[in-house]
């Protein structure tokens, strides 16, 4: 599995969060994309939609699986990754980079601090054997 980058924050539901100026960028981790396998469709959220922490923001579908993606903290959708409409498989190939899903303007920027560190997230993951 790909290394979970140290400069990101994580949730128990396998989202990652990257701070970018006054917004946060959100995607799903390598563990998450691996469970779903080949991703074929992403139902992106509407711009300006207000979400509470843990609220369902996105549905990601693969050939045989479908999963919700949750808002890691409270905020408003500021931007969605339109490129995923034509190339959802980027989530599989580059989950922590070009596979980002949406950007949010947080209600409280400091909420990010309470999310998991890469080490804490990794400790929750099953070890490969």
């Amino acid at each position, binding site marked *: 599995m790909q290394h979970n980058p140290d400069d990101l924050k994580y949730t128990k539901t396998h989202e990652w969060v990257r701070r970018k100026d006054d917004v946060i960028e959100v995607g799903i981790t390598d*563990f998450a994309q691996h*469970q*779903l396998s*080949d991703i074929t469709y992403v139902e992106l959220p509407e711009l300006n939609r207000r979400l509470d922490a843990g609220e369902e923001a996105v549905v990601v579908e693969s*050939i045989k*699986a479908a999963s*919700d993606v949750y808002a890691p903290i409270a905020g408003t959708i500021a931007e969605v990754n339109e490129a995923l409409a034509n190339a959802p498989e980027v989530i599989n190939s580059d989950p922590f980079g070009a596979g980002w899903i949406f950007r949010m303007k947080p209600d409280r920027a400091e909420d990010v601090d309470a999310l998991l560190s890469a080490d804490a997230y990794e400790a929750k*993951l099953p*070890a490969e*054997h």
Partner: protein
Amino acid sequence: MTAWAIKIEKPLPYDDGVRLQTALVNARIAETIPDTVLFLEHTSVITLGVRAQDSHVLLSNADLQRRHIDLYRSSRGGDATWHGPGQLVMYPVIRLGEQEADAHGYLHNLEEIAIRTAGDFGIAAYRRPGITGAWTQAGKLAAIGIRLKRWVTFHGMSFNVKPDLSGFATIIPCGLVGEAVTSLEKLLGAACPTLAQVRERMERHFSYVCRRELKCASPADRLPEELAKILGSNS
């Protein structure tokens, strides 16, 4: 880590199965039950995955009614499939990410369970890249389609033991044109095992592959009300 096995003996209508799974998923998310695996058969039904095309159902609604086949749009991934008596359905409601086995990928594990189960009866089943399921030379033996809610799984796998395969002729199975569907009965003839025999093997392989030892849920376990109701009316 142990998980409950719940076995339902009488073919269950699809919507009851969805209600049951919804109750289990919510209870699992709330951590009032352990990981739980349902084993059942459905009454005759066509289901379409979230993004399946309606055109993959080949019969009109009137023809479906005449043949007593229900039609449902399901929340699972995947395309069109058929369920009915003689097909063993396994619906694991398990939280992913808690066992080492989960690192291999859940869909891969479901395929592995189907392949090992088929192998126990002398059938060499295998994977085909990009088309999840358990395949044989004669066609697809087991179909897979899942949904995750807060990383708790539902829906799952259907394994053709001895169903009336004409049910699959009413759809384009999994949206794959020109691919056949098969069953243990078609492959083994009179040597075909019973559903209970296949289930026993499948339970064993689930325990090993998913690293969750199955034990039968008993009335002493605190079952969700919805579950107790459906089980009560079913026994």
